[in-house]
């Protein structure tokens, strides 16, 4: 099973890489002009581009060379920023990682206990509150929430800085608070809903009734239910991740943070294709890896699956 799963992931990544590669050829306009950007199109420059991208080779050779370079971390030059794509991405990776990490921790710490309480006290005010916040968090686009927070906590009540990433260290952390809260609202709403639904289902099951019937304390019964609910919650990780990618782009744009999200937005608008290709591939690989890890966690969390895997 696991082997099939890994091969499937690799297959999908391969197909995606072809799609990402063909972006260069499918983008409207002349390919050389697109690659030159606003540099002068002297014959030497054109020749250099043709050589660099092997445009004289057959298409499949171009793809193989491109893939080979990509696998070694060489995605070419950014025409907008006049630097190698790997440098451009490397410089912005930190802020995005910090932002999404902060948002993720924030979402987990709030949403899991809230989801459990909301399921345990189904119908109570805390459940209503959680469901309400959950629906808004799930529906509200990150940028709209971000702008509202920005207005209230940076303009109206000037507590937090308005834009940018600060001067590093604590200042950067301070600058990341509002964007992280913005991002965490959507993330948390997904985790909350996953937790609440899974917990409600588990709390309804016979083993919970039997646990209470033989006198286990409520806390312990809830922990048993949560341990069972962990399986669907962890498998939901890929869903959370999908949201995180889009959310990061929007949050960074809203708060003008110089991360990968704003890089993608800028590159897309400028048609800086080499950067877009690299980012798309990077996201695809990250998501595929984490989805695979979530599946592995599944095996770790569920002894029934473990037994099946072990038997093969």
């Amino acid at each position, binding site marked *: 099973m696991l082997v099939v799963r890994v091969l499937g992931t690799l297959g999908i990544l391969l197909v995606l890489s072809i799609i990402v590669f063909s972006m260069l050829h499918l983008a409207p306009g002349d390919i050389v002009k697109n690659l030159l950007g606003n540099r002068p199109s002297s014959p030497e420059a054109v020749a250099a581009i043709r050589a660099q991208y092997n445009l004289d080779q057959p298409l499949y050779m171009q793809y193989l060379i491109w893939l080979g370079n990509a696998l070694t971390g060489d995605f070419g030059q950014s025409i907008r920023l006049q630097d190698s794509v790997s440098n451009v991405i490397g410089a912005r990776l930190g802020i995005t990682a910090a932002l999404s990490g902060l948002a993720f921790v924030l979402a987990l710490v709030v949403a899991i206990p809230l989801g459990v309480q909301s399921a345990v006290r189904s119908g109570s005010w805390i459940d209503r509150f959680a469901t309400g916040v959950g629906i808004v968090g799930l*529906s509200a686009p990150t940028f709209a929430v971000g702008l509202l927070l920005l207005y209230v906590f940076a303009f109206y009540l000037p507590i937090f800085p308005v834009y940018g990433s600060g001067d590093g260290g604590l200042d950067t952390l301070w600058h990341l608070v509002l964007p992280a809260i913005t991002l965490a609202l959507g993330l948390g709403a997904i985790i909350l809903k996953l937790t609440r639904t899974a917990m409600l289902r588990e709390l309804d099951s016979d083993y919970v009734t039997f646990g209470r019937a033989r006198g286990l304390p409520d806390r312990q019964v809830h922990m048993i239910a949560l341990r069972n609910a962990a399986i669907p919650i962890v498998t939901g990780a890929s869903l959370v991740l999908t949201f995180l990618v889009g959310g990061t782009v929007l949050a960074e744009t809203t708060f003008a943070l110089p991360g990968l999200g704003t890089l993608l937005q800028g590159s897309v608008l400028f048609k800086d294709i080499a950067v877009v290709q690299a980012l798309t591939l990077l996201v695809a690989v990250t998501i595929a890896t984490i989805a695979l890890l979530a599946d592995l966690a599944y095996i770790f969390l569920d002894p029934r699956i473990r037994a099946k895997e072990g038997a093969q």
Partner: protein
Amino acid sequence: MSSTEAIVLAKTPRSRRRHPVAVWVSIALLGLVTFLAIFGNLIAPDATAQSILDSLLPPGSPGHLLGTDELGRDVLALTIAGASSALVGPVCVALGSMLLGILLGTVSGYLRGPIDFIIGRWTDLLFSLPLLLAAIVVAGVFGAGYWMTVLLLILLFSPSDIRIVRAGVMEQAARPFVEAAQMLSLSKTRIMFTQVLPNVSSLIITNSMLNVAFALVAFSSLSFLGVGVAPGTADWGRQLTDGRAIMIDNPAAVLIPALLIIGVASAANLVGDWLGQILTRTGRS
């Protein structure tokens, strides 16, 4: 991942609580926006008309209840006119992906075999990229307009519909009443569309309502990022991008469309959840 969707979209098993007040407020809001989407052009015929003389008026200015933006456009009129952009696209996306979902999901879930395998890999592929990222890249690099964006989003939304319909069909197809229909030697197409599909309808309706909410979010996100909608169009997402710079001069230019997007998406989501609860309750005993 399909099991996850099932969980996210699942009707919470024990919750019998209805939220009538919130639901009625949501329906009223959706009704108002629908009304504006249809008749907005009559109420605010020249919403996108620019006037440098009247630029950046604060809310409450004479003749401009919500003030004006940098280009001197009346924020209220612009917001009213934006309703159609906010609703038409998402509804088209929900309907289109519902159709694809019904067709491919039913075939995939009922016939199984090679067709199911091919459709399954297709959805896997579309799923492996985050929807918003794919939409940004494709719409941005290829410079798609509004209707191209609708088609793109239908394509990107369809895998979740396909999987949801497929799972529902598979659940129903294993039931004895479907086998009883097989015992009557009815054709596969007939069983699929007359016996199985009606039993999945509540799932489909609920999911489509939720899709309207998510499509609105996707649409406005794209226009906020500057792709999908042409500059100068009356569009709430676009208003947010333009209004960011003038937040101090006229906060209404940002706050009103932002609240509307959040409100309409939440309302559609809430009504979708509520429909799901009602439909499953009447569908079963």
